[in-house]
């Protein structure tokens, strides 16, 4: 594996044609409509999105400026939240357009090759596992479900009420703590129950780390951040199940929310391909 030579990255003389590298968004086995692909805006400063054939597979790619996508330049850019967001959204658009005609295996953001041939070669070498993964994802989508719990101190009675002597105060405080703890345990148990129930309607499920309140903009803790791979044929059933759980939850202090359908990012992985990746990394 070679990295981009430094002189190529810094070759930005205005009269020179800007050197580019090939950015691969996703792999599919169903040709997406070329017109739709070419009008999808990709990464800033890059060319139009293209479809590249790799045997039975198709890659959605874009020529991107080498200067902005070198190792250091990219690392620097992606550590800036606004740039990271722009890049992530561009990547997602590329993956979405790849998915317009059939199942898709998204590649991680910023999978870059020096040219088209290298990209085709890399994907062709993994064609077998990619095809089995595409088969697994065909006619299935991902649904994200979150459970938010009661805010901390939700159950707190004012510790200042009642007799003002020290002993009564301490009793009230410990009582309040116990109530809070019990409420948290109940909420967490409920989140687990939601997950258990939804797994019955899904082909596969995975849990992501709960998102911070800073990121969600909510003042209540996230108790469950799960993703489910659902057969399209069972989509209505899944959505209904979430709706019922959300209704049940309304009676208590937790909230169940759903987003989807997502491209199955969280399930675009197989043991085989992970093992390959490990071997490659170790080689």
């Amino acid at each position, binding site marked *: 594996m070679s990295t*981009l030579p430094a002189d190529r990255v810094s070759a930005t003389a205005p009269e020179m044609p800007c050197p580019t590298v090939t950015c691969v968004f996703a792999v599919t086995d169903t040709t997406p409509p070329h017109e739709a692909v070419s009008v999808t805006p990709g990464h800033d400063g890059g060319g139009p999105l293209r479809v590249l054939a790799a045997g039975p597979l198709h890659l959605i790619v874009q020529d991107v400026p080498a200067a902005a*996508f070198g190792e250091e330049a990219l690392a620097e850019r992606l550590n800036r*939240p606004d740039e990271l967001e722009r890049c992530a*959204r561009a*990547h997602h658009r590329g993956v979405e357009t790849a998915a317009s005609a059939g199942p898709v295996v*998204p590649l991680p953001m910023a999978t*870059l090759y020096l040219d088209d041939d290298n990209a085709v070669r890399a994907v062709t070498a993994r064609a077998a596992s990619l095809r089995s993964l595409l088969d697994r994802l065909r006619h299935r989508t991902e649904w994200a479900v979150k459970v938010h719990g009661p805010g901390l101190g939700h159950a707190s009675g004012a510790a200042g009420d009642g007799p003002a002597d020290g002993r009564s105060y301490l009793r009230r405080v410990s009582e309040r703590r116990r109530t809070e703890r019990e409420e948290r*345990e109940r909420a967490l148990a409920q989140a687990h129950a939601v997950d258990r129930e939804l797994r019955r309607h899904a082909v596969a499920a995975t849990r992501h780390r709960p998102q911070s309140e800073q990121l*969600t903009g909510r003042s209540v803790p996230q108790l469950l951040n799960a993703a489910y791979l659902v057969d399209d044929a069972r989509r209505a059933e899944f959505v209904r199940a979430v709706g019922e759980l959300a209704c049940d939850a309304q009676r208590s202090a937790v909230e169940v929310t759903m987003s989807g359908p997502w491209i199955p990012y969280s399930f675009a992985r197989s043991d085989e*391909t992970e093992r390959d990746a490990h071997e490659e990394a170790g080689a």
Partner: protein
Amino acid sequence: MTDLGTWPAGPGVQPAGPPSGSLADLLERVLDKGIVIAGDIKIDLLDIELLTIRLRLFIASVETAKKAGIDWWETDPALSSRAARDALTEENARLRARLAALEDADADTSEVTR
């Protein structure tokens, strides 16, 4: 790469985006998921992810989440070892600075007493 000593930074540096969580959902998927096929240009997405998102997210939520009784990420070796390493690095830097300051002060004192 990035100076971990300045991290976590102030409130102005959270990822910009809708508070609804959709950006968080997107980043969670785009950064972390998908099949990995080695590219020609090496970008350690794990590094980027840890530095900009995961670590920030981890630190921001750990207290609240702990209070809420959630701890399953503590079994994530990548995250916990990384966090532990960062904490050690930070402590090391702090101790070194303190040692340097003490040594300076000591040098001053011995000069005075001399």
